[in-house]
């Protein structure tokens, strides 16, 4: 194949990797990065590189599994490990996703308020729009909309520059690791890892890969696309941290949520920086709010054996539509309850996240080394060693995450 044919193949597989990685920079993710930048400054930037590598490893395995086996992750888990394990995992996934959905709806509400609009009016409107697009759109159209939404993340890169960071310090912190065993540092680190490599993303990515119908012979192009997506997402995270570190951390401003970050930026870096930050938050929250309830409903119904699919009518797939609508209504409804302990709920979902992540990762590693499923595409020995080490580290971090979340935020 000549050069142009190779580029054409790469373009044809674009979609799943990029969308998945970027959808993970949702309201929850942005909040974590903003908090990390604001509370710890540049110190934590070095961790982005190992996090990026681990993210690439996990996503690459999952996309390879999707292309080679042609089956979804929940199907593979069920066929290999039985209904018991897969059922309980999916149940946990639903709980975690509910927490994520709440985080994103509150992100929409909060960013809408920054622009001076009432959340009680605009949240229902936006949510209804999201519900409408998803129910009425086709996969190709929605994928295109999502890819365009990914471009909006550029607003964070611009914010980062507008915040006028000291680039020499940034580069130093990026390349020289500085680990602190103090509580806020490790919590933040764990939060970043947990929210960057989310379990639900793996199910979503594999399902997307299959939906795209990528052929076995194009598996290396799929790898490139996935890597590109991960790098894109980490770059966005980088700029969010830099923007908050160079402004909020320097002035010692403490924040608790992403929208507070956007507001706090204004006096320090100007109105444009603040607005772009808020726009980025709205975009990310809408984006994730469209995908998460849908993906959750799909996963749950498929694993039970209920009919799924937006191409089916309500009468043909009642449980699927009911669950999807319920998740959206619950999410938006709970967020609008005044004084709801949102942050506590989001931390609780982080706890379950930390519990679920190492389990899913162990399963992925066993599945990817299964010759029945993967044929000749199992992991090489060196890759396996790297994977096992990463997974053990992630597992430890996940467990620590639970402990900290319980003891620090109770």
């Amino acid at each position, binding site marked *: 194949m000549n050069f142009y044919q190779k580029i054409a193949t790469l373009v044809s597989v674009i979609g799943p990797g990029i969308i998945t990685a970027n959808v993970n920079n949702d309201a929850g993710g942005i909040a974590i990065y903003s908090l990390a930048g604001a509370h710890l400054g540049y110190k934590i930037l070095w961790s982005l590189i190992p996090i990026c590598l681990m993210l690439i490893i996990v996503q690459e395995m999952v996309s390879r599994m999707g292309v080679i086996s042609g089956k979804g992750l929940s199907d593979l888990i069920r066929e290999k490990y039985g209904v018991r394990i897969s059922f309980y995992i999916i149940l946990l996934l639903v709980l975690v996703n509910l927490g994520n959905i709440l985080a994103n709806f509150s992100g929409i509400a909060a960013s809408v308020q920054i622009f001076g609009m009432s959340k009680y009016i605009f949240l229902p409107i936006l949510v209804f729009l999201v519900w409408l697009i998803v129910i009425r759109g086709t996969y190709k159209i929605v994928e295109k909309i999502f890819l365009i939404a990914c471009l909006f993340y550029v607003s964070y890169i611009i914010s980062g520059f507008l915040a006028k960071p000291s680039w020499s310090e940034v580069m130093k912190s990026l390349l020289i690791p500085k680990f602190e065993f103090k509580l806020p540092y490790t919590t933040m680190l764990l939060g970043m890892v947990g929210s960057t490599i989310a379990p639900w993303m793996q199910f979503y990515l594999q399902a997307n890969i299959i939906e795209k119908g990528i052929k076995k012979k194009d598996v290396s192009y799929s790898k490139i696309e996935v890597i590109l997506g991960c790098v894109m997402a980490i770059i966005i995270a980088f700029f969010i941290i830099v923007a908050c570190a160079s402004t909020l951390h320097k002035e010692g401003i403490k924040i608790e949520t992403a929208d507070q970050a956007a507001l706090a930026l204004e006096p320090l870096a100007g109105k444009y920086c603040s607005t772009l930050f808020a726009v980025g938050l709205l975009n990310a929250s809408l984006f994730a709010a469209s995908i998460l309830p849908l993906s959750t409903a799909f996963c749950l119904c498929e694993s039970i*054996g209920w009919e799924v699919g937006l191409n089916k009518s309500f009468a043909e797939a009642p449980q699927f539509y009911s669950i999807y609508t319920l998740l959206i209504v619950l999410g938006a409804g709970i967020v609008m309850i005044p004084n709801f302990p949102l942050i506590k709920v989001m931390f609780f979902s982080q706890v379950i996240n930390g519990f679920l992540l190492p389990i899913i990762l162990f399963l992925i590693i066993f599945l990817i080394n299964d010759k029945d499923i993967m044929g000749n595409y199992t992991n090489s020995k060196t890759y396996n060693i790297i994977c096992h080490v990463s997974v053990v580290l992630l597992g430890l971090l996940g467990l620590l995450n639970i402990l900290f979340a319980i003891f620090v935020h109770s």
Partner: protein
Amino acid sequence: MKDNRVFIFFSEISNCKVIGPKGVSIGKLHDLFLTSEEPLPRVSHIIIKKSYKFKTFYAVIPTQKIASIGPPIRVTPHEIKFSPNQPSSDFTVLKNLIDKQVVDVHERKIVRVNDLHLLKIDNELRVAHVDIGFRGIIRRLGLQKIIDKIIKSIAPKSKYLSQEKFISWKYIQPLLLNPALGTIRLTVPQEEISKIPPADLSDMLIELDIYDRLPFFKSLDIKTKADIFQELPIEIQKSISDSLLENELIEIIHEMEHDKAIDFLKQLPKATVKKLFSKMDPKTSYELSLLLMYEENSAGGLMTTEFLAIDENMLVKDCIQMIKQSSEETKVEEIYATDEKKQLKGVASLRKLLTAKPDAKLSSIALPPPAFVHPKSNFKEVAYLMHKYNLYMIPVVDENKTLVGIISIDDVLSKFVSESWRRSLKEKYF
């Protein structure tokens, strides 16, 4: 207590204790080997597993040696050999049925098996039903009693409690892969599968995992293959044709309706099409190559050459004979009367032919066609004319009034269904 029940679930005996001839437990029930016997598969062997020093060992016991199926299961074999290797067979409950997808030919769907409903006669076990219901999952999880209690207290009349979602085995086609041939061993008779409308079969094929799809497709007979292939979306057509041998693909193209074959061939690179044509039956390749010249949205792109054009002087009884002898793809709802120059002179409906005097000439009952189009006419014009004159078929004539093809209503319909309905009916979402 002696168990007199006739039916038993696999989830009830799976992992239950197996008691040997000496009255002690020798392991747990792991799997059942099946033989595909008519009408219900019979369990031929049971597989026992036991753990010893962190290793798992397996033993195979034929069903003749089963004394009672409890649970617990009592066996009386002469000798029991445990081996660390998992025994293999090409039809087992765990490998092919439990938690796997199978084809339900009755509801025409792909379903996933949650549990098996087994028939117990003396100590013989047969697979009677496949359980695809939510209740089956709950039973596998061991939560049946609790969930039943909860639902009974909330909604005692709920369907969950009264309607089991069972499918009788005779409607089930498991995906038993024959790796050498790359086909599925069909347990459901081919005639049963052929009764399913091709559009539904193609939907089922789409739902199957990519690597089950091709073997299942290959196990069908050529007529069914062609019928299904016509209905598949183009991406799946391409993915299947990529994996077929050239002569297999040519066979399918021959069997397909011409207009559907053209839709497929148009998506292939020209060099591939040339190669296929060179290996095809010359008459077919000539007809197809003519049709290929026309633009997709024109009358020429919609038309087929599989119709009956009969000389206007032929007798009605001979026309009916020709209809009887024509192939299944030929559209015979309207018969077109032509002259020696193959120009269109008249049209007679099937009903007219059947009710006319057998010795009458075709020209006497054929009426001038109420409408016709040219190969370059736009499909909207075609639709409009067919609507205005209430036609099922409309003839396509060239500048010399020679009859070159006909367009039938289903082809026009498919143009509108794909143009005006934004949501494609066969797209799955995430």
